[in-house]
């Protein structure tokens, strides 16, 4: 009798474990499937990105359906799933003495925004006029709301960091640099990183550390400064940004770019080129634009 109770208790415990396990598994599936996909729509790419401390999943789709049908689909399905649509145009219309900029209104009309507790969901449609094949391309990004306390902290890397890692590590990564773009083929790859540091230590880092990966420096374009102020003088900013002129916004014309290139080769004859750029401006308040981008281009073609 005592043994039978023990067996029954064991079975209950076992079944309970399975149920809990399945439940959590289903929760995982649900988490993944919580974004419904309209019919005749294919996922093209998926990537995870981190921005200002919050993680976002970006899913790129293409569909033979029209954008409006897809919008209706998501409005219905997401509302049923507890998401609340946030109509930014309507909200902006409620702000007293404020008329939203026509550019913004036009661009926002390509977007759908939803919110559920601390989660945000954005759907963006690429302009139809550019689709040569008549397909509708849209992107869904889902993530938690950003943490405002991070804003303004000088050491924070605000890059839209890509959380997917490259399959092949071809070159050293500058300390704390965020990977922001990655494209890999069988015999080549291109990676872009960003760091809040200045360009000089970055160039020095690659000159000193590429040898650890078997690369020899064969050519160097030292840091050169491209002054954009003369280029900017050619453009009438009132034409570039008519709304800026209308709103009496004076855009600065003092902007320079620093650019450096390093070319490496290894014993197999493969090449690894590194291009580094950074912005400079004497304007007060331009500090948030002080970051350096690092492009690593690896190619096995001799």
């Amino acid at each position, binding site marked *: 009798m005592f043994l039978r109770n023990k067996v029954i208790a064991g079975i209950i415990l076992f079944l309970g474990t399975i149920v809990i396990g399945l439940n959590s598994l289903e929760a995982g599936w649900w988490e993944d499937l919580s974004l419904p996909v309209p019919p005749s729509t294919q996922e093209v*790419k998926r990537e995870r990105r981190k*921005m*200002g401390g919050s993680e976002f999943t*970006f899913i790129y789709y293409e569909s033979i359906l029209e954008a409006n049908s897809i919008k209706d689909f998501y409005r219905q399905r997401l509302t049923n799933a507890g998401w609340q649509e946030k109509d*930014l145009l309507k909200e*902006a219309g409620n*702000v*007293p003495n*404020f008329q939203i*900029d026509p*550019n*913004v209104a*036009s*661009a*926002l009309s390509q977007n759908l*925004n939803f919110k559920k507790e601390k989660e*945000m969901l*954005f759907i963006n449609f*690429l*302009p139809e006029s*550019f689709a040569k094949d008549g397909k509708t391309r849209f*992107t869904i*990004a889902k993530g938690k*709301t*950003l*943490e*405002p306390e*991070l*804003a*303004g902290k000088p050491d924070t890397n605000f890059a*839209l960091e890509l959380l997917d890692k490259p399959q092949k590590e071809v070159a050293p990564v500058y300390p704390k640099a965020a990977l*922001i773009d990655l*494209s890999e083929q069988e015999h080549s790859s291109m990676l*872009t990183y*960003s760091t809040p540091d200045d360009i000089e230590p970055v160039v020095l880092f690659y000159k000193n550390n590429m040898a650890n990966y078997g690369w020899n420096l064969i050519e160097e374009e030292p840091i050169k400064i*491209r002054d*954009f102020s003369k*280029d*900017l003088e050619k453009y009438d900013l009132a034409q*570039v*940004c008519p709304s*800026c002129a*209308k709103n009496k*916004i004076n*855009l600065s*014309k003092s*902007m320079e770019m620093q650019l450096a290139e390093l070319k490496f080769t290894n014993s197999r004859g493969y090449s690894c*080129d590194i291009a580094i*750029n950074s*912005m400079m*401006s004497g*304007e*007060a*308040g*331009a500090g*948030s*634009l002080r*970051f350096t981008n690092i*492009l690593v*281009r690896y190619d096995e073609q001799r």
Partner: protein
Amino acid sequence: MFNYFHKKKFASQKGQLTPLFILIIVIIVIMAMVTVNLGKVSFIKTDSSNAADAAGLSTGSAMANSFNSVTVSSARMCRDYWSFYASISISFGIALYYLISAQVSEASAAVSACPSPCSAIALNAAAIGSFGSFTSTMIAIGIAITAFYLKQWFNYAKIWDNAQLARKRALISGYSSAFGNSGISSKLRVGSPPPEVTGTEEKHNYRDEFSAFIDSIGPEDLEDVEIPSSYTYSWKDGQNRLHSVKVDMGINDVETFKLQVSVLPYPAVLALLLGIAVTSVIVDGAMTTAAVDLIEACGYETTCLSCCNYPCVAGCWACPLWASTCVIAEASIGTAIGGMVALDVMVGALWLGLLPGPEVTIDDPDDALIYIVDWITDIDHDRKVTVNTTQQHQGGNLGLWQTSYPEISSYTKVDFSGNGDIGDFNPRHDASIIETDKL
């Protein structure tokens, strides 16, 4: 019978055939010699034509491959561009979500600031929070744009470099095919010249020298080498007769690219990003000042009981400290809202400014540094290759007879357009001969 004819022959002066026979034989011999000469000329012409055709097709195929490679790379740039635009549009959506949230909160704070600064504190704080997230998102957008700009420019610069190298390789391939099919090798002696042979043209009478000449057309490091539009190989044979084969190749340069660029030039994008950064600092400062003043005004509200019926409903205007602080807070909120309107304008201009805009024609990749390159639409090129081969062979002195050969030239024109189209991302460039000279 014989006697009859013999007698008849001498009986009449008619039918003196011997000189006629001799004349005919001489003519036949001359014709035979001429025929032999024509045969040789015909061989040279065939070699020359083969060389021109082979060179044209080889160069055309190499150029077609290069253009196909540009097409494939451009298609990849286009895919990358749309992927970038999709993700950056999401980021702009997020940024505007926060900016409009901040505007809504700050507008509510403005409405309630002076009647009730205590209630405006929370609204202003909410606006500060949303605005902080807007700032973070805009920094991410700035980084993403500059990184994409660098990537696309670098891609284009690499494609441009590769196109220059491919043109040089195509020329080298053409020269190798031309000289290799000119029939030179069969006319040369096997091996290397012995030490006693010193003259350049005498040395060229050996096959190893010919191989070395062909190798010298294509050095390993092509980057800083200019491939000439003409090469000549000349040699003296064992009887000191001079021979030469000249090959002229014509391919237009591939330096001028047509690029699809974004609406805004890159410096204008930077100016907008800078404008957004500077205005954000002003807005943030104004909201922080407003927060301090609102807290102060709220404090006066509780201490100014004597001059208003606490809790104040329509403001505590009788209290000078409350009134002045509240008005200052309201002004700061107004500054913040004004800044946000400007931000709204700049963000909109920046977002739409990243869409594909004009097509520009660029000769030098450095000139493209002022644009955000979306993809390559074309290379300004006629898609033609022309080859001319000319052979000269000195005749020999045969004692009675001095042979001489005319200069023999052949011409081939190849079109490598095929069905390829860079702008339509159709990598089907293919080489075919469209014109030759008549044999």
